[in-house]
């Protein structure tokens, strides 16, 4: 029983980083109705900028966070300009496939430009974990959990309480009508990408500060985890991103403990499969009805 509770705690902690990745993913999907497979790799570019200022300039955590976020935002906007802005409405497949190409481009660039494969990443918190009765809590995990809730609440507030949020929701509701009321849709979409990438950059920083190292494979990892968590929780749903991330984390932690790491990944995909069959729209999302997941775009 103690094991089970400890696993659940660990799962929630790991899951909160998945939740953050899914939050950025879902923001892009919600606005564009298109999948950005390059989401993880753009975070990876940010992470390399973070490790660069850490290794070269011995920068402190604040500078490393800033560098990671700025790098992720720049790479995210690069992907948007290249794969999303030029594609016509209804060309969602073209966007997805080109974002896959840019994924490969960013990953290969990271492998070729950087002579060493693995770079150190500065830890967020060193020292012993907190104890709570028989249970252990890592400080950096707690920070990640706090960030997941704070950022999702922040994004929710932004969407429902600000002028920019009004524009984004209008675009999500009806891109043509959003144009007609005078919203500059292209700019708003680019800013949404930047925002999603910033959230992704923070997620990337928190994960890597826990791992204390970064490799070019981080991009793929981040895309997979974010995508799975988003799909479990519900495409385009912010609460869904949090729930999906936490559920994925808990299932992974339990299966890792009871069945080992190979079975862990297997079970994660079984969970995704079960979700897609039983609740195609995700746990908190609406079932897909009128539009295909790749079809609708902004006019």
């Amino acid at each position, binding site marked *: 029983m103690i094991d089970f509770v400890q696993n659940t705690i660990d799962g929630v902690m790991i899951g909160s980083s998945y939740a953050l990745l899914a939050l950025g993913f879902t923001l892009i999907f919600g606005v564009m109705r298109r999948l950005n497979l390059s989401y993880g790799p753009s975070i990876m570019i940010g992470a390399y900028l973070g490790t660069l200022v850490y290794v070269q300039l011995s920068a402190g955590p604040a500078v490393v966070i800033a560098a990671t976020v700025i790098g992720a935002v720049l790479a995210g906007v690069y992907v948007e300009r290249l794969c999303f802005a030029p594609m016509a409405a209804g060309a969602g497949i073209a966007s997805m496939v080109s974002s896959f190409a840019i994924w490969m481009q960013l990953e290969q660039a990271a492998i070729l430009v950087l002579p060493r494969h693995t770079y150190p990443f500065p830890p967020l918190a060193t020292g012993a974990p907190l104890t709570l009765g028989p249970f252990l809590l890592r400080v950096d995990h707690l920070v990640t959990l706090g960030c997941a809730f704070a950022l999702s609440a922040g994004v929710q507030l932004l969407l429902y309480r600000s002028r920019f949020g009004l524009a984004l*929701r209008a675009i999500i509701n*009806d891109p043509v009508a959003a144009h007609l009321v005078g919203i500059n849709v292209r700019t708003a979409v680019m800013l949404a990408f930047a925002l999603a990438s910033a959230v992704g950059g923070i997620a990337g920083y928190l994960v890597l500060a826990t791992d204390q190292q970064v490799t070019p494979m981080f991009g793929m990892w981040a895309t997979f985890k974010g995508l799975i968590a988003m799909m479990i929780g519900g495409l385009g749903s912010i609460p869904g991103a949090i729930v999906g991330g936490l559920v994925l984390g808990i299932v992974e932690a339990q299966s890792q403990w009871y069945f080992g790491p190979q079975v862990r990944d297997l079970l994660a995909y079984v969970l995704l499969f079960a979700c897609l069959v039983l609740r195609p729209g995700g746990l908190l999302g609406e079932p897909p009805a009128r539009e295909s997941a790749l079809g609708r775009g902004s*006019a």
Partner: protein
Amino acid sequence: MLDVANLVTAYGKIEALKGVTLQAERGRITCLLGPNGAGKTTLMMSIAGILQPQRGSIRLDGTDLTGLTPARIVAQGVALVPENRLVFPQMSVRENLLAGAYQRNDKVEIAADIERMYERFPRLRERREQLAGTLSGGEQQMLAVARALMSRPSVLLMDEPSLGLAPMVVAEIFRIVGELNRDGTTIFLVEQNAHMALQVAHHFYLMEQGRVTFSGTPGQLAEDEVIQRAYLGARRTN
């Protein structure tokens, strides 16, 4: 004056507008009638900047609107009430109106304008916190008109406001069109309901297969001929 000259808009190689020339005079109601597929909606979407015309020009009092983004065109004082209304279904009535005022920054005046819309359309006040997607067709049409008015346009474009609505609601919409016009808004209206349109219009055009085929005032052409051409297209020659 809204001045459209030799406008050509194509979908791929198919020209939906084959050189359209027409004017909507300031302070008047101008109607464009024509059968399905004549290119009426294409013209409206081209004026609003959603579709990019290949050739020709769109001017508003001499200012060239051709090729501007939809946001710029709204800033120039032209607002479109689109075909099928296109309200924001997952947003409340009030949020739809706020979105209509997106380019404005005068919070106090926006709130006052929302109040004015509620006075003009009392049903919208009753349903102000309801999601727009749950409104009836007529209510959605009112909301679409009110949303367009929130940008304080000098020219209001309306694309088939009577589409799919009950006769009483249609009459109500046309009453409002007349009212808006008396308050000084220039109106350019696309309609299939020729009977209603001819009652409010100062000037009307017939459009068939991407071309303007008649321009005149109501009464200049017998109503049954207008109706025949507006519904069925070109006059049968036999």
